[in-house]
């Protein structure tokens, strides 16, 4: 049985290349070996100090080592919008800093409520929870390394410190991540259905907005409250689709939007009736 690349070590890989491609790749394997050694000795020469570190220290050092990663973080919403730095997810020490950040708990401290509940009740969420103790969290966030995706697997795939699920990354990136386990056709169909579900939720929003706009006489806070509720439930539909939670797509989403529309209409009907009664009394 063929072994996955990630399952074999550096030396074994070089040996295998040497053995399988006998002779012609001999030089390559030597170069590969030297590369491995060089990498090892560099790391050995500069072992990462244990910490703790301040935010500035993390950034100074890692700007040199992983400029790309720092750039992604700077451009991403964590840094740009919220001022979330390294230690918020990684802790202040080097030891197990990647493992800490890869686990769902590093996200759910801030992303609570529907955002995390829609995920934690999804199939991905529950299996990740059940497998937590068995999962090897030292593995990079790449396909084949995790039984189910945790928050970081999708949103920081391949340690990309921007959000790999952000809308501006485009559907291809998202589809590639899902397709590490699911058939590409299934992923495409699921995405297409998700888009249709969202379009439907948006039609409900449009319907609600135009009803509210028609109720110029209503000066109470009832309709603004219902508008807020519409937007909240539309967001639930999005979370339900993104995290594959049937409950958020449905009970917290579409029928909840239907309820908002009913209540907006009822409000309008009642005020029309009251108004015509008042007009009649004036006459």
């Amino acid at each position: 049985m063929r072994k996955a690349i990630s399952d074999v070590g550096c030396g074994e890989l070089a040996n295998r290349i040497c053995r399988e491609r006998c002779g012609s790749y001999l030089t390559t394997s030597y170069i590969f070996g030297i590369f491995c050694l060089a990498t090892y000795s560099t790391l050995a020469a500069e072992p990462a100090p244990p910490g703790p570190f301040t935010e500035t220290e993390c950034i100074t050092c890692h700007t040199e080592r992983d400029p790309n990663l720092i750039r992604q973080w700077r451009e991403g919403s964590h840094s740009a919008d919220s001022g979330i730095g390294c230690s918020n997810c990684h802790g202040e020490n080097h030891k197990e800093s990647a493992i800490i950040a890869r686990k769902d708990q590093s996200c759910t401290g801030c992303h609570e409520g529907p955002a995390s509940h829609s995920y934690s009740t999804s199939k991905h969420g529950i299996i990740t929870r059940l497998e937590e103790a068995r999962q090897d969290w030292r593995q990079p966030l790449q396909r084949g390394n995790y039984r189910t995706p945790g928050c970081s697997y999708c949103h920081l795939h391949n340690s990309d410190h921007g959000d790999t699920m952000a809308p501006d990354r485009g559907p291809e990136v998202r589809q590639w991540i899902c397709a590490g386990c699911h058939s590409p056709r299934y992923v495409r169909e699921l995405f297409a259905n998700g888009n249709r579900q969202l379009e439907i939720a948006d039609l409900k929003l449009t319907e609600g907005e135009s009803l509210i706009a028609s109720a110029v006489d209503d000066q109470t806070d009832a309709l603004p409250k219902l508008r807020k509720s519409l937007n909240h439930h539309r967001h639930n539909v999005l979370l339900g689709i993104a995290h594959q939670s049937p409950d958020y797509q449905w009970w917290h989403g579409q029928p909840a939007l239907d309820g908002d529309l009913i209540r907006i209409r009822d409000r309008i009907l009642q005020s029309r009736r009251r108004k015509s009664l008042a007009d009649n009394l004036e006459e």
Partner: protein
Amino acid sequence: MRNRIIIPLIITLLAVPAGFAYVHWSKGGTGTGLYSRYWSPDPVQGYWDPANFYQSPDSVQGIFAGEQCVQCHEGITPGIVNDWRASRHAQREETVYCNDCHGNDHQQLRLPTPDVCGNCHAKQHDEFRDEARYGFPSHVLAMERAVDAKHFVDKPKAEVQSCVQCHSVATKCDSCHSRHRFDAAEARRPEACITCHSGPPHPDDETYFASAHGKLYLAEGNNWDWSKPLTKGNYKAPTCAYCHMDNGRHQVAEKSLWKFGLREINPHTSKNQVLRKKWIKLCSDCHEEEKARQWLTELDQERKQAWQKLYMAEAILKDLRSDRLLQPAAGERPPYPMDWLDSLWPRERIGFFEGQASVFYNVSAIERDYFEMWYFDNLGAYKSAAHSNPAGVEAGHRKMVASLDRIETQANELRKLSQAEKKAEIRIKPSGDLWMKGAYTDYNREHN
């Protein structure tokens, strides 16, 4: 005298085959179920109901042996190959390969249905199929229940895909035995159920986790040996599967006494006495029989109180209907596409068995409140009572009282308004087309 026998006999002889022929005809459309002629599936539905809608891919040509599937998919979809390797399918001597369930021909691949799993797992499959005898609600009839619901037929099929995701528990085995590990130990844990058994109408997750049983599970469950069968003495606290699938029996509806809390039942019929004995026997795996009997009585009492409140709400709504105070009136609402009777005789549907489960849209606000009281508050209270979570019972009943208050207040206001209109000699202004038009409402009308 002769005519009295012959005429009904002839009518019966004609009507019964005609009925069968009609049902057969009605199931022959592009969808499935009783209203199959009124809807067509969303493309993704093939993945939730493979027996009826799955279409094999045409991307790859060829006939492959199991090891070839694995070799190729190791690169394409490594996640599922790893999962399969860790499964008993891969680890047993006579390996169960991809092609054993999906087929060899890549252009004729199938998504495994319960029948495919049943080729080897005959006992579980037979039990699962046999669950149909308990009627609704049950796992095996869940898809039927979904597609025969009026809102499923009416609403755009892309929207109601969220329904079939959970209702696919009838059409696939991986709702509980997640692919491609299919681990019985995983399916025994409460988490295997909660993707579907959560949310307002069935908060089984919250109510169980808040109970003494659930708390014990949350504190210690990770250390229990889940490879053990669901039998007496193997688990320190009961889980969903321990009670609802005791001894691994694949029939969750087997002991269903209160039918999900959806309808009022007589808990003491001879049939239900048998079920009560089964529950008492199960609880007595750990508790004294007398205690179990007492808990069942408490559940009966909780249900009685819940139904008293629900019937009060129902009476208010029926009175409003009799006095023609429900606005919009039935004729001023978008009708269901298959309900031709509605267009001849429009009637507001009040009552828990008059299609009430579909009454969450296109109705008046007071009817929606009534729906939420029944479907959310009541079911929350029921689940809490059944899972021994007293705080949840209290909260559920508090919500029901609040809903009932709101319904009463609204009804009084509707009456007052109508009286004032009568006094001022205003003919009650019908809601006109307020319920009939809108971006979504128009789209919905066009898309079944």
